């Protein structure tokens, strides 16, 4: 039986767009009972001929565009630049290929749609719907088959088979999950991820070097109000050895200088100072979700994270003054060595980077 009910419609007399009556072809749907307006292409043979020419022209133009694409591909040098109105200078090869290839594709579509709109029928037809629900006898039959199957398999009869199967099926994915364990090849000297996250490359006496030229920093080279991006002196060596950027992702710091009177508080315990003559060093990695920060407003001593706009007051222990970050930016205790270069006194006292479950567990 036909789902679309076309059996019922075969052979019916219906009115077509031309106003004449014809027989429905087998498989044709009856026209809908709606107002239908003739198009020019329906009544005027010249308009029809014109539409045919337009469609064919679009298809032909598409083929021309393919030829032009190949010409562009071969002829235009990779570094040629062309200036387009409203867009400005852009790569000529890319633009030429995009336009020719794009038009080659677009014109096929334009031709097809124009063809459908002007030349194919525009008589709306009706197709009946049927409820999604299956007929009751089918549903009953399914229930019967199920019952028979249940009986024949004795699935209900032996609960022990059922239960052990369910148990086995529940456990069988476990090897797959377990075998994901070595997604992290844990080095022998690392106990837990959180322990790894809590240490950085900074050791007592590690020199601070600038982060691009890797030059050690003399205290007097940093002016009051200035900011220097720095990394540990052994970073490059460690990166070479480990072949990754992990150490950098934790050890990056900024050094700022203010007059000692400007400093309201530091993260050092009472009676200690972690600055060196107004030079303060903080982690560069935001405690929110880890973006590196170096937007510093010298006048207010505010450090602003460009990603989510957390603000930290560097003159006041780098406490959060605004934004989504909760923990302050950890301070690195610094001093100078015999040659007057800035060095770390120790590692950070607080974990750097984003918070995690074990961040405050010692």
């Amino acid at each position, binding site marked *: 039986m036909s789902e679309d009910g076309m059996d019922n419609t075969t052979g019916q007399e219906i009115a077509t767009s031309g106003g004449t009556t014809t027989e429905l072809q087998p498989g044709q749907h009856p026209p809908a009972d709606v107002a239908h307006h003739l198009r020019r292409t329906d009544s005027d043979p010249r308009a029809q001929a014109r539409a045919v020419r337009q469609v064919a022209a679009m298809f032909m133009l598409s083929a021309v565009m393919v030829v032009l694409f190949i010409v562009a591909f071969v002829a235009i040098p990779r570094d040629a630049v062309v200036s387009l109105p409203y867009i400005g200078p852009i790569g000529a090869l890319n633009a030429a290929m995009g336009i020719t290839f794009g038009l080659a594709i677009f014109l096929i579509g334009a031709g097809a749609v124009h063809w459908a709109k002007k030349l*194919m029928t525009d008589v709306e037809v009706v197709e009946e719907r049927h409820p999604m629900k299956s007929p009751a006898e089918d549903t009953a039959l399914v229930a019967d088959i199920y019952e028979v199957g249940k009986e024949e398999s004795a699935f209900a009869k032996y609960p022990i088979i059922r239960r052990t199967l369910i148990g086995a099926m529940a456990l069988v994915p476990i090897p797959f999950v377990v075998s994901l364990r070595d997604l992290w090849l844990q080095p022998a000297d690392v106990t837990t991820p959180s322990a790894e996250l809590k240490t950085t490359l900074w050791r007592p006496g590690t020199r601070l070097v600038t982060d691009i030229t890797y030059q050690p920093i003399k205290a007097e080279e940093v002016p009051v109000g200035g900011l220097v991006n720095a990394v540990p002196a052994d970073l490059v060596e460690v990166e070479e050895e480990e072949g990754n950027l992990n150490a950098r992702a934790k050890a990056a710091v900024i050094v700022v200088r203010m007059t000692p009177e400007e400093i309201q508080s530091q993260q050092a315990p009472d009676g200690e100072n972690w600055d060196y003559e107004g030079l303060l060093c903080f982690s560069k990695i935001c405690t929110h979700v880890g973006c590196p920060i170096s937007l510093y407003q010298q006048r207010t001593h505010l450090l602003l994270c460009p990603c989510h706009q957390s603000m930290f007051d560097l003159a006041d222990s780098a406490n959060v003054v605004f934004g989504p970050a909760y923990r302050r930016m950890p301070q690195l205790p610094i001093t100078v060595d015999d040659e007057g270069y800035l060095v770390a006194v120790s590692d950070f006292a607080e974990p750097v980077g984003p918070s995690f479950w074990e961040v405050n567990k010692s």
Partner: protein
Amino acid sequence: MSTEQLSGIERTGAGAATYVDERVGSNSWLSRNLNKVFPDHWSFMLGEIALYSFIVVLLSGVYLTLFFKPSMVEVIYDGPYVPLKGVKMSEAYDSALAISFEVRGGLLMRQIHHWSALFFTVAIAVHMFRVFFTGAFRKPRELNWVVGVTLAATALLAGFSGYSLPDDLLSGTGLRIAEGIVLSVPIVGTWASFLLFGGEFPSTDFISRLYGIHILLIPGIILALVTVHLMMVWTQKHTQFPGPARTNNNVVGYPLMPVYMAKAGGFFFLVFGLITMIAGIVQINPIWIFGPYTPDQVSAGTQPDWYIGWLDGALRLMPPVEWSIFGYTLSLNVLVPAAIIPGLVFTAAAIYPWLEAWATGDKREHHLLERPRNAPTRTALGVMAITFYTVLWIAGGNDIIAVGFDLSINFMIWLLRISLIALPAIAFWLTRRICLSLQRRDREKLLHGRETGRILRLPHGEFIEVHAPLNDTERAVIEAKPDSKPIPIPPETDSSGVRNPKYRSGRVRARLSRFFYGDTIEKPTADQIGHADEHLSDDVEFEKPLLEREAAATVVHDGSVLHKPSLGEDGHPSEAPDSGDGR
């Protein structure tokens, strides 16, 4: 049509069809489906755009895999892009630069890939709005709605995973944020992050892992879901808007063969061609400007692709809240915006069809779409959700806005925090009022006809506006409004005083139902409409001579001078306004 009339090529085709049919019985299926009727409406093309841009994503993506090297091994750049010469970078970034500068057509394909991904996500979002606001998700299409919501979420993952592959500074920063979010997961966060990245961030495994996910896992899932999505549309037949001859039990439109095939097939080429032209002239994601990723650098004003913007905005708006539980840390400032809010948004969207069906007690099949105004509460909830989303999305660019309008970041954040709570509520209320007003106007139209904007002066001096009867389409559309009444509260006890066990849930349901339908403007009864029609035709009869008289009195321009045609004794024009030879 007999075989003799077929051309050579058609005979080959028929032969192939027979060959396949003898093996899989395909002709029976084709006989039922080749002339399937599809209703026409511009908004039905939104889903098509999503489908077609996905195909374009797949095609251009396959091309990119031929050149892209998903490796984090460090190399020194030695390509034609001078500013980066000698810079250390990952092989992934190096090969992405080679695709952009050395491979002819590589940049075009990269831009086609990126643009079509943007088209894909935008089309999904707008298509979802269409389906929601017209009630197309109602029975029997709830399951397909869930498939759609899952597709939307998967599309976000597809976009984000692709955006993160080139290993430029922008994509690496996105990954760093993703790592921060994983770290915030309670109990297993650090382990999950180490397993994902193969150790600490960034390590050297992630790009190749993400590559497999981006080119195999996620597209596989999308492809499977799209297939299910389309099969369901096919089986259930497309919904249609109300109109003349359209009922809940039919489909009015064009048959697949040939009209819909040509239109939909042609539309694929239109979408593909348009994306390609845009990719040729509009630059997207110029990775060479950002430089290679390094975890200690970032550029100010960085923006994610649009579909991630709302999550970034949520991260920005969330106040700093961190809980300590027995010494362990729960970073709600990250967890809420990055995991809980999107989780709630997608869950609420997915279960909405059942919530509404329960609240309204509606168990019927719906194939006629509902006009948004006729479901004021649903429409208002949708606009509320979009407003919530939009505020978060704007927050994702708050720094750019603050710079552009010379505002302080603090002010922007507070403004948006307040907006996030207040604007959705206002939007809900306002939308609902607008919908109800539109319902009232529809009622007016049924009872008094359409306002023509034409003012008539009656002989005794009164001015009236001429009302015209509605045309068939207008009438069919307005009359399709369902008569939805709130469910009454069930009795607390039955006649013999036994407590009704369903009283409590029934009361909740009655309240929800009143929330949905309580204020609905009643549709006039058939009787009232009949009277109105009579009245209107009387009016038309009455106004006819007046209108004629007025038409005659209208100043006409006959080519050189303006004049009024003279009126006859009976008030009718003595001659038709002539065409210019009456001088």
